[in-house]
């Protein structure tokens, strides 16, 4: 289970980072969302993965570490608010600057020149 979990988190962060390296606010927002999903899963696993153990003390012999779950909850709420802000800002930037590139103007792309 650990291996599958680790691969999932790693793949999702890789996708997020790849998307964030694009220069457009739309892909940046999608990339950030993926990265924050990955980080939430990562935080969740930081207390160790357990199956069939509730995060409640003294109800059974086995219990999961409750703290990462509390941390994830906080991180999800904050991440959600931040994404909402980023989307609004991206729309504002698109309206104010006339382009959804993060620098406000389309960057010169040598690769696309070569093709044409």
């Amino acid at each position: 289970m650990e291996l599958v979990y680790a691969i999932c988190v790693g793949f999702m962060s890789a996708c997020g980072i790849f998307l964030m390296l694009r220069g457009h606010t739309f892909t940046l927002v999608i990339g950030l969302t993926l990265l924050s999903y990955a980080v939430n899963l990562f935080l969740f696993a930081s207390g160790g993965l357990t199956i069939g153990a509730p995060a409640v003390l003294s109800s059974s012999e086995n219990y999961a570490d409750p703290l990462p779950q509390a941390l994830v909850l906080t991180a999800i709420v904050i991440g959600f608010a931040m994404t909402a802000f980023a989307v609004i800002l991206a729309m504002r930037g698109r309206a104010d600057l006339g382009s959804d590139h993060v620098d406000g103007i389309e960057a010169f792309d040598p690769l696309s020149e070569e093709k044409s």
Partner: protein
Amino acid sequence: MSLFDHLVIFPVLIPFFVAVALLFPSLNNCIKRQRVLSITANIILVIVAFSLLFKVEAQGIQVYALGDWSAPFGIVLVADLFSVLMVCLSAVLGLAAILYASAGEDKAGVFYHSLILFQLMGINGAFLTGDAFNLFVFFEVLLIASYSLMIHGGGKQRTQANIHYVFLNLIGSSLFLFALGTLYGTLGTLNFADMADRIPLLSNDELLIAKSGALLLLAVFGLKAAMLPLHFWLPKAYSTTSTSVAALFAIMTKVGIYSIWRVHGVMFGDQAGELANIALPWLWPIALLTIAIGAIAVLASTSLRVLCSNLVIVSVGTLLVTISLNTVQAASAGIYYLLHSTVACAAMFMLAGLIQQQRGQAEDRFVAARSMPQAGILGFIFVLLAIALIGMPPLSGFVGKALILQSVTNATEAMWVFPLILGAGLIALIALSRAGTSLFWRTNGENTSAPKGHLFQYVAIGLLVAILPLMVIFGGTVSDYTQLAAEQLKAGLSLQQLIEVAK
């Protein structure tokens, strides 16, 4: 428990409740009531911050366990000499920023006063917290307030700078969480004191994981502090935002510096066993390069606000040097310099705002323009601030730099630190004299229609400028205090002590 026992949490609660109250329609509709309430709240905040400072000085470290849950499980606020000094600094700076904005800048957009109080809440919380996850939460509080404040008033340039600032910091926040997860996975706690206790006990296969977590944290704090490869967002962000916001942001980079100090200077400091001083080999070259790059950028600046933003980067580099020197004396000098550079940079941003307001279309760029209606008084303040920022006697910049240079004992370290810090001072001298010459003397005609500075704006600048000579006149008291603060910081705090103090 009397009310006085809860003093530690007041610097977080006062701005929070007043900010929420300001959102109600009866207050939100009337800018005058907002100003009165937010200035009053800030004066109370200054009084609370200083009474907390005297309390900590008299009775030692104060620990406040929220909901009376004891230390490693509950959330604690820790007020020691260093953190409480930073809270005082942020309270004074916040008061100056709000006074300056009350001259009219707060009408450029909505919710100015609420946002600035939320920002102060986040800053004070970040200084006082004794728990790494809470540090993250308070960082987010101060960041989301700063995102909105930076774009306050609107405009193309601000939107553009804000996009860079917001996205970079969002990525930074994700990395912060990754680092916290890594550290929690190895240490099993996020309480600063408890973490410091457990770091030397790590087993061999956990060392590398904890190390990567710690260095990831360095990158995150470095982004907030604008240290070398992560500083590119700063000049644009600080120079395009509104004046009072830029002045308050002078303390934002210091929040990053403060966190590096706490985490990498102390927690992963001398007592960390195998992981002792892991950040130092990185910090030392980065600090020196930050000074050098900052100084070059100072020379290349074309307007006063950009110049001042680059001076912020130089001061960040200087502070990183004092962290990486890793002695009590250097830390003490660093804390003194931190106070001075924050206040001086904030005042310079305010002055740049006034100059921009009085020069019409030329704004604060270094070009010939019509002379300013109040050139005399502005020039006087400019000279004072320039002397402080360059580090010439008799103002506090000189004392700060002298203390830093004095704390360098090792010859090889001195070989790097002396030329860079003194050279950066020389470059600041050249750049600021050129700036002053073109702003005040290269004039043609008189601009009589420009709006004169408002009384509140001068009071705000005066409040900050007055601190600089006071830091020299009471230099002994201040440096004794920073010495004690540095000793306390370097000694660290174990969980045992934390629990004992909390009782």
